[in-house]
């Protein structure tokens, strides 16, 4: 064990000295989180909005205030004609315009429905539907409030309407769903790649042979080598979670301790995978390629990160049982978003544990064989 610690200390020095690798291990994951987080983000804020208010009274000002307070819209212009709105839309000065018609208050108070017009730049269909959804939600909110206030003076017809189509989730939780997947994805790749490379590098440079001449068993050498990577991956995982909390308001509703436990098992499995790769190949280039292939694609496609497993064809679904990120994602989403306790996701922990044991077992067998 003393010897394994000596190896661990050496590996740690090496990593610290190799600034590039350390940066990759610690900060690139968080950087990736931002990159992917924003790229995969379906939420849009601060939409540049033009307002043409033809009513100019308390009711119209209430409606405008709702738009501003939502933070989804910034009022950047108050044009006075449709032609002006058209020009602004064409130049990209605004992405949306709200037109409040004359006589809105009168309609409201006479039991009629007042129609407000929302114009949305449709060049990006995704953004447009999102913006449309926001406006819809705001208008309906105001409408519902007015309904309560005016209940005596009118029937059940909604006071204000935009359009009767509703198809956006007003909770806008897309990022929260994706971020746990990203965390698993990033941790998996960096752990597998860094472990496999660090061992294969020693084979290439000949230090592996030198160490094998020393009275230390291969297993304790490998254990010593992976200790620093375990801690670095763990720190990296929690850095990503921290970044996600800061940038995407990711809540952590469950137990941090349980989260630590789940992340530890997952990382051990990932390190084991990297170890197994390193026993199969002798060049860094090949190790890198194989590590990426077996960690990137399955974790991206087959873990439920983006595509729901339930909607996969049966043979593919079977394959997903061999992808550790699949279990980790359920654990992560369960703890972070739903605040689940251990009992609810014990089976996932078990599956993850089985994966780690199997992979480490295979790697040990391969390592023992190398002794010839």
């Amino acid at each position, binding site marked *: 064990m*003393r010897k394994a610690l000596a190896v661990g200390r*050496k590996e740690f*020095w090496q990593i610290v000295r190799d600034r590039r690798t350390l940066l990759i291990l610690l900060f690139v994951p968080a950087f990736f989180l931002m990159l992917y987080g924003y790229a995969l983000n379906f939420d849009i804020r601060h939409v540049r909005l033009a307002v043409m208010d033809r009513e100019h009274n308390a009711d119209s000002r209430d409606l405008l205030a709702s738009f501003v307070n939502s933070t989804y819209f910034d009022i950047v212009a108050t044009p006075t004609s449709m032609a002006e709105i058209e020009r602004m839309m064409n130049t990209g000065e605004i992405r949306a315009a709200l037109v409040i018609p004359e006589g809105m208050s009168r309609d409201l108070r006479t039991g009629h429905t007042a129609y407000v017009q929302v114009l949305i730049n449709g060049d990006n269909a995704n953004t447009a539907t999102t913006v449309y959804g926001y406006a819809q939600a705001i208008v309906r909110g105001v409408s519902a409030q007015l309904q309560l206030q005016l209940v005596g003076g009118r029937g059940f017809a909604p006071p204000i309407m935009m359009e009767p189509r509703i198809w956006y989730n007003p909770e806008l939780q897309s990022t929260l769903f994706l971020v746990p997947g990203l965390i698993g994805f990033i941790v998996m790749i960096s752990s597998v790649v860094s472990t496999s490379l660090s061992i294969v590098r020693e084979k290439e*440079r000949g*230090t592996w042979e030198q160490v094998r*001449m020393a*009275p230390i068993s291969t297993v304790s050498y490998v254990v010593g080598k992976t200790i620093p990577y375990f801690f670095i991956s763990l720190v990296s995982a929690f850095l990503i979670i921290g970044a996600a909390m800061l940038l995407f308001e990711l809540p952590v509703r469950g137990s941090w301790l349980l989260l630590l436990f789940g992340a530890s098992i997952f990382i051990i499995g990932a390190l084991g995978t990297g170890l197994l790769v390193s026993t199969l190949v002798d060049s860094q280039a090949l190790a890198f390629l194989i590590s990426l292939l077996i960690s990137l694609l399955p974790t991206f496609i087959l873990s439920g990160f983006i595509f729901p497993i339930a909607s996969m064809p049966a043979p593919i679904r079977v394959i997903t049982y061999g992808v550790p990120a699949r279990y980790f994602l359920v654990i992560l989403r369960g703890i972070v978003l739903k605040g689940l306790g251990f009992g609810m996701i014990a089976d996932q922990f078990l599956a993850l544990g089985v994966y780690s044991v199997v992979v480490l077992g295979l790697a040990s067998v391969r390592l023992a064989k190398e002794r010839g």
Partner: protein
Amino acid sequence: MPAVTVRDLTRRFGPFLAVDHVSFDVEQGEIFGFLGSNGAGKSTTIRMLCGLLKPSSGTATVGGIDVGRDPEGVKRRIGYMSQRFSLYELLTVEENITFFGGLYGLDDRTLAERRAFALDMAGLKGRERTLTRDLAGGWRQRLALGCAILHEPRILFLDEPTGGVDPVSRRQFWLLINRLSESGVTVFVTTHYLDEAEHCHRLALMHSGRIAALGTVSELKNVFAKRAVVEVRTASPMEAVRALDDLPSVEKTSLFGTALHVWLRPGQRATEPLRERLDGLGIHAESLEFVQPSLEDVFMDVVERAGGTAA
């Protein structure tokens, strides 16, 4: 008791016989050279002696320990240094020493003592914090040697230790090796540099998995004692080879750097027939004199007799 005893040591890789019933002893404190071209079986033998590779048959004991039965016990007792001076380039001089000390399980006090020794030996005092990758070849080599003997092994294996190092550093290195040998450490060196082999007390020449010749440097050179070797210096060596090859008194000729070595048949001592033949063909010879056979002569001869070619 010899430091290393090898009896009928054999290793197969599938149908290929890499080491074929090799037997020899190495005495304590001896510098024992293991010579041979690439693929002759040197590395396989050394790997078996270091406990890295199990013998297919035969036995070897290193420091009294059977390598087949207790490879870990062997590893504790030996030092090993390869031609690649396998140090960690991103670690400092001091960190490399600390790491290898830890690998051999040295306690803190012993480690401090041995660290000072290794630094002194490598001439790296005051440069403890230099990154190993910034060291020149000679220093790196001496540091690797220092790391290999931190645990004070009685037997040291050097696998082609001076590749890629300048001649001055090479000489310094051999001075260190001689000092170790004088203090009783057995040094087992593999090399394919023949000039390096001259530093060894005894030599084994390996060819095709077997030991083709074994003895002291002078014993091996004595193989030629009965035959004279004449060195011919000429501006046109190729023509000279053709001219001298079929003389009745000549056994064979070989190009030797810029000169020509002519091996006379046993009992022949006369250089006149050579001179006459060359003059007759109008080939000018600058000099024609008897020389001591070099190890390279021995090596070529052994390999030729074994029916192969030297690489």
